[in-house]
């Protein structure tokens, strides 16, 4: 199994988390995720922009045009209040799920339970 690309359904959470660090353009979000995961997670570049559009349509992030560090016109995204709330609840859900998965994987054998 290859976990280098993000798991389905987790991209939105990763985008929200990376934007919680501050406003950023699409390419910057990509880099933030890669760096934070120490290059383990590889976000498909094509999937990023529809995810941003989806989150923007849901009102979880807002977008505005600005000037990038390399002096180019870029679209910057920012977390909204709804986005912050969503990030909090999704993070809790994810932690509960990951913890449960961890517990199952740490069980020595199913026989020991019976």
């Amino acid at each position, binding site marked *: 199994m290859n976990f280098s690309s993000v798991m389905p359904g987790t991209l939105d959470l990763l985008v929200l988390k990376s934007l919680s660090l501050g406003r950023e*353009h699409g390419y910057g979000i990509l880099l933030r995720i890669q760096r934070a995961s120490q290059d383990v997670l590889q976000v498909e570049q*094509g999937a990023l922009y*529809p995810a941003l559009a*989806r989150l923007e*349509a849901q*009102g979880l992030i807002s977008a505005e045009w600005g000037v990038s560090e*390399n002096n*180019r016109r870029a679209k910057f995204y920012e977390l909204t209040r709804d986005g912050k709330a969503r990030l909090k609840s999704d993070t809790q859900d994810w932690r509960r799920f990951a913890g449960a998965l961890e517990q199952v994987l740490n069980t020595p054998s199913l026989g020991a339970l019976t």
Partner: protein
Amino acid sequence: MIMRLLQTLKRAWHRKRYERDLADELAFHLQCRVDALVRQGVAQAEALRRARLELGMVELHRDAVRAAHGLLWLDRWWGDLVRAARGLMASPVFVITSALVLGLAIGVNLILQGLWQNYLANPPATSVAGLLYDLELRGNQAQFVAPLTADEIQWLTRDLASANVSVIASRQSNQVLGLTPPRMTYGASVNAAYFPTLKHQILAGRSFVAADFASAAPVVVVGERLWNRLPPAERRLPGTLKLGGQTVQIIGVLTDGFAGLEPFPPQFFLTDRFESRLLQQQGNPIDSRFNTALLVPAGLSAETLRGRLLNWFQTLPRNAIADERVGDAHVLARRSQLSAAESRDADVMLAPLISLTLLLLIAACANVGNLMLARVSLRQQELAVRASLGASRWQLIRLLMLESLLLALLAGAFGMMLTSLALDPLHRYAMSMLVAMGIEPLPMHINWSLLPWMLLQALVACFGFGLLPALSLTSGDLAQAARRDGRLWQGRVPAARLRGWLMSTQVAISLVLLVLAAMIISLSHKSREIDIGYPTETLVDLRHPSPDAALRARLIALPGVRAVTSTANAPLYGVVPRQQVRVGDRSLALGTQTIAADYFQALSLPIVLGRNFTEAEASQQSPLAMISASTAAALWPGQSPLNQRITVIDTDADGLETAQSVTVIGVVPSVVSGLPLAGIDGTMLYRPGALGQPAMRDVLVRIDAGATDAMLNTLADACVAGPNPQICQPWRLSDMVSVYRLPLIVCSHLAAGLGFISLLISALGLFGVMRFQVRARWREFGIRIALGATPQTVLRQVLRQSLRQIRAGFVLGLVACLGVSLLLVKPIGWLQAFPLLAYVGVPTLLLLVALASAWWPARQAVRLSALEALRER
């Protein structure tokens, strides 16, 4: 959801900018990646190639972003809408026919809706915060009790003041206006709370103040219309006006259209106190009763108020509510300018009309649905090609439904235009009987709140005519249709059968509407044939407030006057009062009228049996009676009624009965005494009276035949010529009959209009359907003509086919008509159940229309040469 839709629409509106931004964003991403690779030592060209490979297909990403923003969905719908519009533009005849058929039905419905809104949907405007309630009183047997008198309203006002409840009272007060010619004019008499609590605008001067009520001052507030009718020299404030024979002072002018709590805007307002004095001077009994509304502060429930009112009624003096004891008080929230009782009447009147127009809409939908089906027979290949190219059934249904929606909206717009043009003229025409009584209804303007109603109707119509054809047409094997001459629609409901159903439905509904119209028209014609029994053309009722012997002498001296008589209530002025009588051991109610000795002579009625009252008997009100021939036949069949005795039961205000035995001395022909449309009275009892007695308030004058309106003015002049000058308004009894017949005439004209529209819808629908059906078979006709069939044979076959399609509708419609006829005959006594015009004329007419609608397209088909027809695709 709505915000997201608005965002999507905003993006669609700024589509160019959106696309540019999307391209810029992806280009920026690409450039950032290229810069990163170059920093890693990759050559510029190689870096660009790798960045592009990593990013993947840009157009796919764009599509995914557009989809996330809802733009793809919008694009799909927009594309379908454009295709639907193009599809409709390719069939202009179909579009025009369908829009006309539906638009007529929607328009008629909107007109009625407009009338309803103008009268029943505008809540009464109050200038004080609170809820407005109507007060309705019921007796111990739950019967309606007459409303309150001015005194009772004053007591009630005092009693409810502590609860901050305002008691608003008003009543219709028709008075003769001293303009030239004198005219009975519609006004209102109001109490002190009326103007302070209701929102009104004073154009000039002032409205009433407390002092006007306290002193019963002869003051009047006039409406703008009446003000404009005054001679310019008299338009000043304070000015004077002759009203009900009195000179009154005009103190203020209200802006046009203020109706207060009346159904129509009164042309003048009087204080209740002054009106009482005026009625007293006119010799009328002062028993003015007022419609009462209560303005209740928020927080006081209707139930609490009702309880308080019932307690208050218990405290009233025994004779306060003169005729009956109040057993219950209903407190009804007032939802419009009309009172609760008036609203009920209006609902009762409008409900059947709205039902009829809904029937018309159903017929129109069936018709257009049929047109849709017929039209798609010419588009089966197009649909099949779309299906072959991958269009799903849902997409095809969506396309067809969008066409239906566009068509319905077009029809709705046409209906709206029709409403804006016809609403006011139709309202004015329908209310013309009120104008004859001095009431001027408000002009009707199209209210834009009709727009949602129109859209709703269009939407309902769209599903009504579009859904069945769309489902039916896409349920079959579309691949079959791709083959030329392949048969389409082998689904669950074959199109031909569906067409038959739709055609039958609309023909049946049209037939019901037309037969109903014909019944009402024949009713109106029948009303013309009512024989009143005396010459109404030459009889004039003076409507004088206080007639006396001097007036009679002045009138009889006028050239052209043949006779003058008096009666307690002039004939043809409403329902004849009925009195309980006992004859032997039988108890029954007879119509009664008190008349002067010369009454029958003035009406040119011969004495059939016995004799008339003498002058002495009349002035002494002797215990004698005369009866009509029908009363004699009913009470003493086969016997002489002369010298028979009838015991008349009189009931006083307290419900105490007194019996008086009267002797029958004569018999006169049976005539119409009450409402003209009620026909000849079955039972009538005449009792003697004389001019000058309190009850004898109506003066009847017989004038020469052929007398002009100038004669009526002469009679009016005679009223004001004596020592007791009083304005009177002479009315020919024939005019009275016309006024009473007017509603029926208006109804018959409206019914004829509805019937005509229904016929037009049928004709247009049948024509459209036959045209498409014939078009679809041109090739077949070409082949048959090429094989030797004559055009006449083909024509006959088409006509036979069209008749087959409407046969079931005829049978259904006629069965429904029989049901409706039998339902209506009972409540409308003299309605003919099966008039020839309705049951022979209408089906014949509809048949002719159907044949003509089919004949035209069929004729076009057979005029084609065989070669042209075979070339037809």
